[in-house]
């Protein structure tokens, strides 16, 4: 199982593709940043030092 996204029995043929909703709505950017700041404060200040990747394409 994949966490909350459990696989279900499904038909062999593909189902209807996701519908376009006519485009996203503009968000309200004036709401409080408190929750976001709280999330940001939890970030390990040194984690980027551990992020060493191989170069790709």
């Amino acid at each position: 199982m994949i966490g909350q996204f459990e696989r279900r029995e499904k038909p062999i043929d593909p189902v209807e593709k996701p519908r376009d909703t006519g485009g996203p709505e503009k968000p309200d950017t004036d709401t409080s940043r408190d929750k976001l700041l709280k999330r940001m404060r939890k970030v390990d200040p040194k984690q980027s030092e551990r992020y060493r990747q191989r170069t790709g394409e």
Partner: protein
Amino acid sequence: MRPGHLFGLETEYGLLIHNPEVGIPPEMLVHQVRDHLFEQHKVGLIDRHHRAHDEPPGNGGFLLNGGRFYIDMGHIEYATPECTGLSEMVAFDRAGDVLLHQTLVDMGLSEHASFIKNNIDYETGATFGAHENYLVSRDFPFTERGLGRLVPFLVTRQVFTGAGRLGANFVPEGYMVLGDPEFPKIPFQISQRTDHIVSDFYQWVQFNRAIINTRDEPLADPGRYRRIHLLLGDSNLSEYATALKVGTTALVLDLIHEGVAPDVAILDPVNALKLISRDPERRWEICLEDGKPITALEVQRDYLDAGKKYLSGQSDDIDWTLKAWEETLNDLETGDSEKLVGRVDWASKLWLLEGFMAEEKLTWDDPWLKSLDLEYHNLDPERGLYFGLEAEGKMSRRTTLESIQQAMKMPPVETRAAGRAMLLRKLMKDPAPYMFNWTSVYIEGQHLSMVDPFQTYLKEAKVFLKTVNLL
């Protein structure tokens, strides 16, 4: 004849180890994640054949959603299936993200590691890609003159496609600098990949990354189609930016095919890419070949105007793209990047970082900001800053939870991914020797050609299954 739109994305993911004491090196963990995906989650069928010199048996495989997971240059990479709609494509792009994160959760490793959907690291100067693929017909003007009309658009589209980063990488991998030059200080630039683009046209993808990749590998009938393969773009978290990136690029390819694309000649496009990305004033002024100044937004306006004139009303996606493009350019023209929060990744990231800097009294050279930049791209919904914005309702969406869930396990309905997925599903139930490629499937030594990406091949697949005694 100009075909309809068909596109796909390929993403190379980074892997951040939170707790090195767990003792699993990142390069080993990506293999374990891949194996878990195929062996435990049963997302598809692992390859049993050599696909290429760097893709031995077991390196990856096709998925029940028609896409593909594989290991490439040490990164786990996800290719979406062939898509024909923008919302559909965004859903399939996000399906890969969710599958990877949920696999870490399922393996009990989400506290120890996270997949990062970005394109750089700050420690080694490495870069890894977010590639775009657009199908065009064989009579598309795949010449320096024809593709030359695409270059100014690609150089300037970063104003809404960039994912943003701190600082700059002045020496792309594979290059060296003689002497001891002093590089300018760049607090923040709007694109991650532009530092690593060193050519305008080139056929290879590493060390000599070009604005336009020219290799001729259509992954379709070579007599009818070509594939425009782009590797200069950033990985977008914003669904709006992903849709706008692909929508505008597909639209500009249409303009070129119709012979009505603007004739704009930018002086030194590779340098112009960097000038735009690194401009601290975000005025984005560059030069035309005749020496006249022009801004990135003016170049984009030229393409937008041509799109409105020649392509308006041809499809819902085109009309959405034209409207969103114009709104985005209008907002960028105000110079107030906060207007783009929720739609453009670099603006959303900058807004978060500047808010945090003000709150914590940090300066741009504080190393904490690099870690926060990374966290914007963290695919863990409980950690990632993009997901924090999404949870606060600040991100414009093109998908729903349901459409992403569907895209994790079902293919698009209008392309050959449908037939491919049907055959995969059957083989997972009734095993038989197989070999899957983008353009063909072999079962029991029998061959089904799937060279037209616009066909579903569902009927042909059923006949094929009867031929090999699986139906």
